């Protein structure tokens, strides 16, 4: 009898504390900074084109083969506006197949794909979760704005530069340096 009472005391001691649960559809708990939603393509705002050059390494490495895409010649390169010779023509991810493993992000050499915070994508249509290039870029732009995105390959330099600028008390130099990434990428392509 005594032990059952001890158990009741535990219940009693927690009756007055604040609830830890959230009423889900109406109320959302905050996401962690690294939270993984579905993959999205990033947008290079300086040139006005996607980061993706269509090298297809993510398509090859995807364990569920949920992606497909094509590579085309970049018209902006011919006009001299962009340093990317090739660019993604069209791209599709079947998010219904995606298992959110993050391998595509890991293998990408061009900072072109990121795990966005998008995670509520229920749909009534059977193929409603197949997303094409414009939708993927929308998701990407939203994520970039939300998280103050810096290209991962430039992140270290940007963080160091920001720290240096803060130490010197001058204007932040990180912004300026982040744009000089394209020349290097083109040589890799």
């Amino acid at each position, binding site marked *: 009898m005594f032990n*059952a009472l001890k*158990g009741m005391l535990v219940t009693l001691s927690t009756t007055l504390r604040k609830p830890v649960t959230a009423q889900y559809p109406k109320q959302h708990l905050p996401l962690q*900074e*690294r939270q993984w939603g579905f993959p999205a393509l990033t947008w290079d705002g300086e040139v006005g084109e996607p980061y993706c050059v269509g090298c297809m390494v993510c398509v090859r490495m995807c*364990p569920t083969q949920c992606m497909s895409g094509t590579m085309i010649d970049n018209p902006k390169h011919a006009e001299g506006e962009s340093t990317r010779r090739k660019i993604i023509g069209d791209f599709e991810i079947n998010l219904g197949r995606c298992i959110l*493993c*993050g391998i595509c992000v890991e293998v990408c050499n061009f900072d072109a794909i990121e795990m966005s915070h998008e995670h509520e994508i229920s749909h009534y249509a059977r193929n409603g979760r197949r997303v094409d290039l414009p939708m993927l870029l929308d998701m990407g732009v939203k994520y970039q704005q939300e998280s103050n995105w810096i290209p991962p390959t430039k992140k270290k330099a940007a963080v160091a530069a920001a720290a240096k600028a803060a130490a010197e008390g001058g204007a932040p130099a990180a912004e300026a340096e982040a744009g000089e990434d394209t020349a290097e990428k083109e040589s890799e392509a």
Partner: protein
Amino acid sequence: MTEAQRLESVDILVNMGPQHPSTHGVFRMVLWVDGERIVDCDPHIGYLHRGSEKLSEGELYSQIITLFDRLDYIGNFNTELAFVGAVEKLMNLAVPERAEYIRVILCELNRISSHMLFYGTMGLDAGAMTPIMYGFRERERIQNLFEAVTGARMMHNYFRIGGLREEPPDDFVARVRGVLPAIEQGIEEGDRLLTYNEVFLARSRGIGVLSGQEALDYGLTGPSLRASGIPDDIRAIEPYSIYDRFDFDIPIGENGDTWDRYAMRVEEMRQSVKIVKQALEQMPESGPIKAQVRGIPRPPKGEAYFRAENPRGEIGVYLVSDGGDKPYRLKIRPPSFANLQALRPMLRNTYVADAVMVLGSLDIVLGEVDR
């Protein structure tokens, strides 16, 4: 028909599952019952079979980690560790110190979260609705931490051959330190709530008894084996990773009944907290987190067997490589599958009402049983 024949009782066949709320997954039991007493039990498995072993033969080593996440979907880190451990053993890779410590911390936290789920469902099986709320509350703290480190709450895909995917966030150590006291408190609170409750004791003491010899014969491992009084823990008898650097006890039971199997897991949570604390103290503050490995690892021709202590018991990975980028053969020895063998002898001569408790005390995960 004589009078005796007319009054003769026959065993009734009762089907439990696969859509039974208390079978912890899609598991089906066919019971032969004589009144309330179980005469025999026939377990049916395979509803969640995905062919992980065969699928592995067609995937790159880096892609197989995602399959291992989905084997034991409650102890993901531990299962990932078993696979990367096997490949590292075959490649003879030395994993950086810091990576090993982070792995151990995550694995032990995962063990706590797995046992917390067990604690909750055990209460449910016994008819107590409160423990699952407490169990999930503590589990949530750990899951949030995992989400902050890996980005995912369950299918992390965080361990890599030779180390880790990426550096954990800067406040990782502080967050683990912050979450530990709450977990410790939660364990004690849960312990007070359920362990020595008279109703729970009456439901679990002396039910589903398995002697030490029987348990060994059936190939039980993990807490289910230790409950029968055999001190067998891979972390202690054959330390892998860096488990030889920690000081922890192996709890063993006396009777091998349902209550003992439950109590083992509660005690193990305390030991895991102890290990995490030691690991946090010993962990180097900086250093590499991944060894030098080629983008697509190709282990040399040969074979390796690696075993690790999962929350449920011994997980073994037998890997045969022909020198290519995909394994030639990958055999998984899942703990739940072997533990489930003991269900039949344990259920004989118990009551139908206890069947769910006995099954629950084995703590099976069907993703692993069916592979």
